[in-house]
Structures are given as structure tokens and as C-alpha cells.
């Protein structure tokens, strides 16, 4: 989980950027250079997909144009979610469209940028990685705590069963106790791959949030 976040250098990012417009990519490179992020740019989605698949742990943030030909931003979001890449995805669009943003967020995007992009966006873009990292960490702790609680409860139940039965428990009772230890009892726990950001921000180049 911590592969996409480095506690030693919390603002060190390696960004993957996909946009059909080379000018947008130039602007992204400029912004990244200013804040010492590494960046790899693509004007086509499929080559970017190949690179991502071959280098899963190398990128900790993805910038994606919503309206790419071929595999567009929405399909890309689905691909990222399905193949459980940890890198948060920020989508970009030249139009401010509430519905597009809604679609992107429902598919897992963590932010929605309207072009033309401002350089200031890159100053705080690391916060998306940090936020996801903190959420994952908390979820992991919660899962561990839940497992601990379940273990403790089952231990107590064992004690109760043994004492109420009196003699050594029959094999059926033993089986029942054993099967409860197989996994988390609560089926509602979300898995790490399907997390959605707690906070949604819409960033325009006129006002920040």
C-alpha cells in the first residue's frame, strides 16, 4: 500500500500524464519541473496503459484527459479501478461540465481540472496522494482492529461454549468455532482497491477550494 507514497519524501511524485494536446502536456511538464516532480507524458492512452501495467509501482499520480480518442478518461478510470492501481487519477477537461465531473467521480477520479491548467495546481497536487495514503492507512488500521475484536470475541465465546457444554465439545461444536475464524465477520468492509475519496474538490483556474 505504501508503494505509492514515500514518508521520507512526501512531496516527491512520479506523474503519468495523458492528453492529446501536446501544449497541455508542455504545461504539465513545466508545472512538474517547477515542483521537482518526475513526469512521463503520452498523447495516446494505450501506450500509457502498457507502461502502467509494466511499471505498476512507479507512478503515484495520474493526470488524464477525459476526452481522449480510443480509450477515453471514463474507460481509463474503470481500467485503473479494475486493475487496482493505487495512483489517484485526476481528470482534465476543456469544459466545465457538472455531469462529466459526476461521472468521473463516480468512476473513481479524485479531482476534476478544467483547462487551461494553472501552474499553481501543481504546487498542491501531492495532497491527493497524501490523502489517499492516509485513508488507506486508516482503513487498514480499522480492519486490523476489527479482526482483533473478532478474535477476542471468539475466544470469549469459546470459553462460554466449553463451560456451558461441560465436557469437551463435540466435533460439530468444534467445527462451528473453527469456521468463525476464517475471515472478517463484517461483510461491509470495503476492499482497498475500491476506495473512493472522502472529499471531492473541483478545481478551476479562477478560484481554488
Amino acid at each position, binding site marked *: 500500500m505504501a508503494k505509492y507514497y514515500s514518508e521520507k519524501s512526501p512531496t516527491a511524485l512520479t506523474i503519468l500524464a495523458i492528453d492529446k494536446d501536446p501544449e497541455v502536456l508542455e504545461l504539465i511538464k513545466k508545472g512538474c519541473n517547477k515542483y521537482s516532480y518526475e513526469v512521463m507524458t503520452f498523447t495516446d492512452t494505450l501506450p500509457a496503459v502498457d507502461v502502467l501495467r509494466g511499471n505498476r509501482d512507479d507512478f503515484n499520480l495520474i493526470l488524464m484527459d477525459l476526452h481522449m480518442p480510443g480509450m477515453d478518461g*471514463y474507460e481509463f478510470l474503470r481500467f485503473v479501478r479494475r486493475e487496482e492501481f493505487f495512483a489517484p487519477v485526476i481528470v482534465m477537461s476543456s469544459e466545465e*461540465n*457538472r455531469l462529466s465531473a459526476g*461521472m468521473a467521480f463516480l468512476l473513481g477520479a479524485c479531482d476534476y481540472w478544467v483547462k487551461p491548467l494553472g501552474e499553481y495546481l501543481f504546487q498542491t497536487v501531492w495532497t491527493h496522494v497524501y490523502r489517499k495514503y492516509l485513508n488507506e492507512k486508516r482503513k487498514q488500521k480499522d480492519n486490523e482492529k476489527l479482526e482483533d475484536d473478532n478474535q477476542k470475541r471468539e475466544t470469549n465465546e469459546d470459553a462460554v461454549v466449553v463451560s456451558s457444554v461441560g465436557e469437551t465439545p463435540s466435533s460439530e461444536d468444534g467445527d462451528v468455532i473453527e469456521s468463525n475464524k476464517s475471515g472478517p465477520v463484517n461483510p461491509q468492509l470495503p476492499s482497498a482497491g475500491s476506495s473512493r475519496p472522502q472529499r471531492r474538490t473541483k478545481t478551476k483556474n479562477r478560484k481554488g477550494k
Partner: protein
Amino acid sequence: MDRNQSRRQVAAMKQSLFDQGLLDEQFIQLEELQDDANPNFVEEIVTLHYRDSSRLITSIEQALKERNPLDFNKLDTLMHQFKGSSSSIGAKKVKAECNLFREYCRAGSAEGCMRSFQQLKREYAALRKKLEAYFQLARQAGPQETACRSK
């Protein structure tokens, strides 16, 4: 009701919406984005659209009332947003009406705008009703998805 029969009805209803020219390819794109992680995606997006667009309709109505003269730029901007939202769900006929409205804006025809807007509202309401019926039927036929509705 037999599950397969329900599903056939849903498919038939959907096909009819396409045959009537009410929906286009974009609706199919939405369906293709729906999966286990987003089992109600299409309905969620359509719901978002109607929330979003009803606000725009109110704004356009307001703007049409502010005559002497009509602010065609404002109307065009609002309609542009409305068209974008309608396009996103594949509302083919509504989108065509949007284009017509914008042409009247550019021609500076108040009469044209008013007439076009009335027609647009009719198409909009008609599609909304049909989509509501469609999703209700789809939910009842409920195939692979769980019935959990998002807020």
C-alpha cells in the same frame, strides 16, 4: 413474473427508445461503464443529469422573461451547458432542440427562442418520463446487480 420475460421487456423498452430517435450511442457508452463496482451507474448519471438540467431550465426560463431585449449571449451560454448535460446521457432529440434554440439565439430571434424552448421542454419531459419507467422496470428485472441504491 418470469425473470427472462422481465429482461426481454427491458430490452424491448430500451430498443424502442432508440427506434424513436430519443436516445443515441452515448447511452450505450454509459451502459458500458456500468459494472460490479458501479452497478447503478447509468441510473445515477441520468438522475444527476435531471437534477443538473432542471436548474438550467429554470435559469433559461428566467432569462427568457427578462425581455427588452433578450440577452441572447446569456441564453446561448445556458443552453450550451444544457446541451452538454443532455449529450452526456445520449438524449438525441433534446440535443437537436438545443441546437435549434442556439441557432435562434445567434439569429437574434426572440420568437424562435421561445417556440424552440417550449418544444424542448416537451421533449425533455417526455424522455424523462420514459427513462423513469425504463429504470423502474430494469430494477424490477434486477439481473446481476445488487439492489443497493446510492444516495
